[in-house]
């Protein structure tokens, strides 16, 4: 939902839930029990509020965050420097590959950035090679060497 919530859409308890539940919850039979005891808000009310927060688009979901790479499969960020007058043609060639999971135009000489998602690690190089041959452009490969993300919070 590409829309900003109106000012009155969230009350203080909604904001507290959004802020607190971005931290992981333990995988237990009653995951909201500790927060319920702390806030005085019954567990079932927490669940009801989460349902509403999803309905109004304040949250996209509540559930497990999955590391797609850990499930098998390989991912690689790639970039191309596409001449302006060939942009649409190259975009069509790149997007035609089902392994291209997403693709963004960015303001830079390297102006097309896409992610390859393949079943097997060796497929990354072959799909990138194919895109290079089809477009006649150098495909820059940016596989992740190390990943850091722990801190991101959206203050509601």
């Amino acid at each position, binding site marked *: *939902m590409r*829309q*900003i919530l109106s000012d009155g859409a969230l009350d203080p308890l909604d904001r507290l*839930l*959004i802020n607190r*539940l*971005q*931290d*992981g919850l333990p*995988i*237990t*039979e009653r*995951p909201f029990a500790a927060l319920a005891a702390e806030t005085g808000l019954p*567990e*079932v009310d927490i669940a*009801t509020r*989460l349902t509403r*927060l*999803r309905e109004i*688009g*304040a*949250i*996209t*979901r*509540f*559930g*497990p*965050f*999955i*590391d*797609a790479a*850990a*499930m*098998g499969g390989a991912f690689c*960020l790639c970039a191309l420097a596409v001449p302006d007058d060939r942009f649409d043609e190259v*975009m069509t060639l*790149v997007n035609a590959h089902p392994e291209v*999971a*997403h*693709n*963004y*135009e*960015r*303001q*830079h*000489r390297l102006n097309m950035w*896409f992610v390859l998602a393949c079943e097997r690690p060796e497929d990354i190089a072959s799909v990138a090679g194919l895109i290079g041959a089809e477009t006649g452009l150098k495909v820059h*490969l*940016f*596989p992740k*060497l*190390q*990943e*850091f*993300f*722990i*801190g*991101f*919070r*959206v203050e509601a």
Partner: protein
Amino acid sequence: MTIDATDRRILQATAGGLPMTAAPYAEVARWLNLTTDEVMERMRAMQASGVIRRVAVAPNHYALGMVANGMSVWDVMDDRAADLGRQVGALPFVSHCYLRPRSLPDWPYNLFAMIHGASRNEVEALRACIADLLGDACRGRDILYSTRILKKTGMRLADGG
């Protein structure tokens, strides 16, 4: 880390979110004809091995007012990149932070950090915070704003197991 067919069923069933009840794992167990304990034990094991990063709320940052974002990129000295990357990744306004290989001569940057803010100006101010943090370990920087989504498909789970 390998997951079996039952793990995969659990992930597929919960990828769109847990049921919003006080006892969501009991409900997932009912969907899949498993016991609640088995669902929880398997999910805990997947969390321990890193398949599940955490169970949490995914905020819609756009709806909550963080409408601007930029991919900041940095050329950080190799021997300090991992340590500084961890510090940048821990910043509350950075959603993803990766070390990646440079692609010389076109691309000298090895640290990528996605910055989110309420406006382009705020993103630039936050970018300055990262520059301060990196200090003289950083030899070059840039930021790439996206102008258009050209393709976006959901990350699908591979079938089978």
